[in-house]
């Protein structure tokens, strides 16, 4: 037990406590911070990032995570509204909504974070007691968790340290502090978000899978580490047993999920099918024909947006074998090299044996014991598996008012769903805070006009402890820098990024009347913003600084050749001095914001978003194309969990109509649109007379919904006995007497979905079939119900209802695309003929009712028009396409546009509400500001040079440039992403990218070769 120090910190309660710094917690914290709300983010780990930082790549983009996540993390470290407490756990929660008191315990890191520069010297010399490892990969104790960790600091395990004094000495920054104590403190907050994530099922108890005995049997997370570039094998795929590349790999699904093994969870873990497909595809992409991949599965659950296409790609393009079977055992055959899987499939009655080099277990997710304990301590009601319970239509509200839940703590899910829920939780938790008064823009001095001044450059060289100073003589470099043209002062600056040094640099700029600054130090990637702030505080425009990266690019990589490192450091500084001489003061683009919101679509999603934003004081216009509110929600009666939909929707309509901040415009057809985020103008024709009116607004939210699909198949619309699940739902509510007389009911899944014409899965149909089957069963317990399916996709907790349906005798029969069921009319009934794959025989049922699971389709008419008017991209099946499927699932690629509900993809009401709350949060991140800062790294066009050749128009990846009425290219700084592709291609050199102007790049080249000619 470590010693604890009690500290009392007086704090206001007007903030949100976020428990868990994984992807969900980070999203919640960032959303709140960007909405000008204060957050305390606690994580018990040494750095934030959670599970995702361990993954090699993520589906469906197969991108490298480090590249997509690390900017998010450093953003999270930077935001002024976020207080980040790592190695911290919550020990108690008192109070209620609006005024909680939370006890926190922070474990000692034994490293002074203010001094640590993350140089890694301690870890290099004492790997046994310095933590930079997750400890998750039991085969690689020294594997680096991930190199871009936030905070960028190590921690020390004092118990394993044998020579503390040596460890103290090795640290060049003097940051090791063995006297560090744990801290206990109490904080106050208005609301709490639980985003503690999930743990992974441990398969060691299942001896038939051989995980404990066979090194070549690994979990899916271990496989990710093996494939990861920063993993134990540096990304080399090798068998743990012998270090050789495997030729044949098998995945086994549902390990620890779907109630199959000892200790397994009853639910489906939702993400593992996609994870296995991704791992198999990435493996195939890397090794092509050198490697065979096979996935053993029960139901392939690729129910997310466009996930079915990913499954088809795995099968058809990459040749991943999919085998519907659960292997009986994994054994190493006598003295054999490979692992033998014994399994059977339903077309072959006998056991098959097949050898593999490696087996990956797709382990499911579960709630960790400490999270369960914490949830109970907070007074939350949990379900049997330990997840925080929520009401059907309040997806992120726990049983305790003021405490919200998101991500895996609510139910197992993938990253996009986690991100959506995290934003929803931010919306709800932020609502509980009092509206705070914003800080004025600090007390920055006015910017000095340097345009007519002669160049006065100051060069500051960091020694960064041993990192730079240990390899080269910083004083000599400073002396050398002093000799460069226009340099007024050059001096060594210890740790340039320490508070003390930054104050000195600031002072030096003022005293020496400097107008350009060069820092010789570390990477601009991590430190440019910091030094920009320093020179801004000294009254300079923040873009008049250049950083020479003499640490990462010289001393760290040429440490064994100090002379060459010195020479290169001088080169880099000379280049920076030359470039900064070409730097000009730049203005960041700001535009004032119109804070009104346009919501297109008045269904459950649109109304929920509107209400959440209206609560926060924003004026909201709902433009609904029909003559009433409610959308598809008005048609539906019951959910899978048996909650009635109508009362909820009616209540929502009443609240929307009564809200003074919401104006509902019915029969509204959007006809034109212009402007930029913060100042949009949308024209619409409204009412019976189709009057034209325009609305000015700052953000646009698309909640246009989807339509019930009705493919002309299986006698739909021809026979009385045939209907969709939606129609069956209505009969169950309105005509139970009719339903009672159905002795034989057949349901066909995937009607109009997962077929060549519409390849995607409609997500909701499996659960609606189960829902209706259970309801029919209740009315007529003796009737027979057949569900003809391809894969049952009852993800998450829906699995428990699937199990219940099977228990109640609902018969599930699989069919395949090449053996579709046949339906023939038979009087008031229909004859349904299908093949039972286990019996291998054709069966015929005369059904009183045939329910077709037809799902949802995009509303082609409206989405096509809206996509054209708003210039929004759509998926091939007509749904709006989000900006980033993983990290920005409800943000559209056009800034200021968001999408929620079934306009995004088919989903349940609960999921639509989650998205509605999420977009309300995302919209607030924009609306909370008074103006938008568009940055300065945008291109400028010199109209005198432009020949209107259209090359920029063609080359821009974001379709920003156009030829304006004056006949030259116009590039809107609000839309420019700053890549500079147009500048590179412009034949007249009429386009320049600010901060990366041609003069500046050429100056670097000239300076680099200066020493050779001079």
């Amino acid at each position, binding site marked *: 037990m470590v010693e604890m120090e009690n500290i009392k910190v007086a704090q206001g309660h007007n903030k949100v406590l976020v428990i868990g710094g994984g992807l969900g917690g980070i999203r919640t914290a960032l959303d709140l911070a960007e909405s000008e709300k204060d957050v305390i983010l606690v994580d018990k780990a040494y750095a934030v990032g959670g599970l995702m930082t361990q993954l090699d790549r993520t589906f469906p983009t197969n991108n490298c995570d480090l590249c997509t996540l690390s900017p998010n993390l450093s953003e999270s470290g930077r935001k002024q509204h976020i207080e980040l407490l790592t190695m911290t756990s919550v020990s108690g929660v008192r109070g209620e909504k609006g005024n909680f008191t939370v006890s926190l315990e922070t474990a000692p890191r034994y490293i002074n974070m203010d001094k640590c520069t993350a140089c890694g010297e301690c870890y290099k010399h004492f790997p046994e007691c310095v933590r930079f490892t997750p400890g998750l990969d039991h085969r690689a104790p020294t594997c680096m968790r991930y190199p871009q960790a936030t905070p960028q600091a190590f921690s020390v395990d004092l118990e394993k340290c044998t020579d503390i004094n040596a460890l103290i000495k090795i640290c060049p920054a003097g940051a090791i502090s063995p006297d560090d104590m744990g801290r206990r403190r109490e904080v106050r907050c208005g609301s709490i978000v639980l985003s503690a994530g999930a743990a992974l099922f441990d398969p060691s108890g299942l001896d038939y899978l051989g995980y404990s005995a066979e090194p070549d049997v690994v979990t899916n997370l271990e496989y990710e580490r093996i494939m990861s570039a920063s993993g134990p094998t540096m990304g080399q795929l090798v068998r743990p047993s012998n270090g050789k590349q495997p030729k044949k790999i098998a995945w086994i699904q549902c390990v620890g999920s779907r109630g199959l093994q000892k200790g397994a969870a009853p639910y489906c873990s939702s993400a593992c099918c996609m994870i296995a497909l991704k791992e198999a595809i990435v493996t195939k992409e890397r090794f092509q024909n050198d490697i065979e991949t096979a996935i053993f599965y029960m139901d392939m659950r690729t129910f997310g947006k466009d996930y079915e296409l990913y499954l088809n790609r795995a099968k058809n393009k990459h040749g991943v074998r999919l085998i519907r079977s659960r292997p009986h055992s994994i054994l190493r055959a006598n003295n054999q090299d490979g692992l033998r899987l014994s399994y059977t499939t339903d077309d072959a009655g006998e056991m098959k044996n097949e050898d593999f080099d490696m087996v990956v277990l797709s382990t499911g997710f579960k709630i960790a014991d400490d999270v369960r304990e914490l949830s109970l301590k907070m007074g939350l009601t949990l379900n049997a598996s330990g997840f925080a319970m929520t009401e059907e239509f309040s997806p992120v509200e726990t049983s305790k008012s003021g405490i919200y839940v998101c991500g895996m703590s609510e139910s197992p899910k993938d990253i996009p769903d986690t991100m959506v829920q995290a934003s929803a939780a931010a919306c709800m938790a932020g609502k509980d805070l009092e509206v705070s008064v914003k800080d004025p823009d600090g007390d920055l001095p006015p910017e000095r006009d340097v345009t007519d001044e002669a160049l006065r450059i100051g060069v500051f060289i960091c020694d960064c402890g041993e990192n730079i100073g240990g390899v080269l003589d910083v004083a000599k470099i400073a002396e050398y820098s002093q000799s460069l043209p226009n340099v007024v002062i050059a001096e060594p600056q210890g740790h340039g990024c320490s508070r003390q040094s930054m104050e000195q640099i600031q002072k030096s700029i003022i005293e020496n009347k400097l107008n350009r600054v060069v820092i010789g130090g570390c990477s601009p*990637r991590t430190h440019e913003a910091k030094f920009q702030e320093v020179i801004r505080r000294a009254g300079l425009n923040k873009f008049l600084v250049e950083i020479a990266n003499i640490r990462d690019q010289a001393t760290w*990589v040429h440490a064994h050749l100090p002379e060459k490192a010195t020479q*290169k450091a001088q080169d880099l500084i000379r280049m920076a001095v030359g470039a900064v001489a070409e730097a000009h003061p730049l203005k960041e683009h700001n535009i004032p914001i119109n804070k009104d919101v346009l919501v297109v679509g008045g269904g459950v999603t649109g109304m929920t978003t509107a209400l959440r934003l209206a609560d926060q004081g924003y004026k909201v216009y709902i433009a609904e194309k029909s003559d009433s509110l409610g959308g598809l929600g008005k048609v539906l009666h019951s959910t899978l969990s048996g909650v009635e939909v109508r009362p909820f929707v009616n209540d929502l309509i009443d609240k929307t109509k009564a809200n003074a901040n919401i104006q509902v415009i019915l029969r509204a057809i959007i006809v034109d649109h212009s402007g930029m985020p913060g100042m949009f103008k949308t024209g619409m024709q409204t009412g019976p007379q189709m009057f034209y009116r325009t609305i000015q607004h700052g953000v646009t939210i698309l909640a246009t919904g989807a339509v019930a699909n009705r493919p002309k198949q299986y006698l739909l619309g021809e026979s009385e006995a045939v209907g969709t699940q939606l129609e069956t739902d209505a009969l169950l509510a309105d005509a139970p007497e009719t339903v009672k007389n159905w002795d034989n009911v057949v349901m066909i899944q995937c009607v109009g979905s997962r077929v060549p014409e519409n390849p995607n899965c409609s997500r909701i149909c499996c659960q609606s079939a189960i829902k209706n089957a259970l309801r029919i069963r209740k009315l007529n317990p003796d009737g027979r119900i057949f569900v003809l399916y391809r894969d049952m996709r009852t993800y998450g907790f829906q699995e428990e209802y699937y199990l219940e349906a099977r228990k109640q005798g609902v018969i599930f029969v699989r069919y395949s695309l090449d053996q579709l069921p046949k339906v023939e009319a038979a009087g008031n009934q229909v004859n349904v003929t299908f093949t039972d794959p286990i019996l291998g025989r054709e069966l015929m049922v005369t059904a009183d009712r045939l329910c077709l699971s037809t799902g949802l389709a995009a509303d082609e008419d409206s989405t096509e028009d809206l996509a054209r008017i708003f210039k929004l991209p759509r998926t091939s099946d007509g749904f709006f396409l989000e900006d980033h499927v993983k990290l920005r699932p409800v943000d559209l690629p056009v800034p200021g546009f968001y999408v929620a509900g079934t306009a995004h993809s088919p989903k349940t009401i609960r999921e639509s509400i989650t998205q509605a709350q999420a977009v309300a949060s995302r919209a607030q991140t924009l609306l909370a500001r008074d103006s938008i800062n568009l940055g300065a790294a945008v291109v400028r066009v010199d109209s005198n040079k432009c020949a209107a050749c259209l090359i920029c128009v063609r*080359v821009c990846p974001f379709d920003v440039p156009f030829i304006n009425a004056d006949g030259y290219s116009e590039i809107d700084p609000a839309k420019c992403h700053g890549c500079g*592709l147009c500048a*590179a291609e412009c034949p007249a050199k009429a386009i320049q990218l600010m901060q990366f102007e041609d003069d500046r790049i050429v100056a670097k080249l*000239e300076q680099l070769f200066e020493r050779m000619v001079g």
Partner: protein
Amino acid sequence: MENFEPVIVAFCCHYCAYTAADMAGSQRLTYPANIKIIRVPCSGKVDAIHIIKAFEKGADGVYVAGCLDGDCHFKNGNNRASRRVEYVQKYLDEIGIGGERLEMVKMSAGMGYLFAKIASEMTEKIRKLGPSPVRPLTVQASQPTAS
């Protein structure tokens, strides 16, 4: 020629290659000091003029380093860079500098080891090719200040 130390300019995109170079540093990998990095927002920002200018000023080799295929932060800037590099290579062949002195490489932000590997390979390759034919004209008799 024994002691020929080429100067090689590496234009690195901010999101992947430059980050990979930083990572090579934080992993303490080593590569020859001959590589001098110039940061650009996207490899697609590297103009043909910049490459030619580098050779004109005395570079013995140049490479443009961008993101892996499909990972470009700006959608397709890396592929545009590839095409431009191919074009400039032909041009370099024509004017007698030699297209083999210019290369396009791709890596992800996590691939510090690849950055170091490419830096070493490129240096070796250029060392074998010898000094750029442009160089003697500009250097003439003057000696480099450091050897």
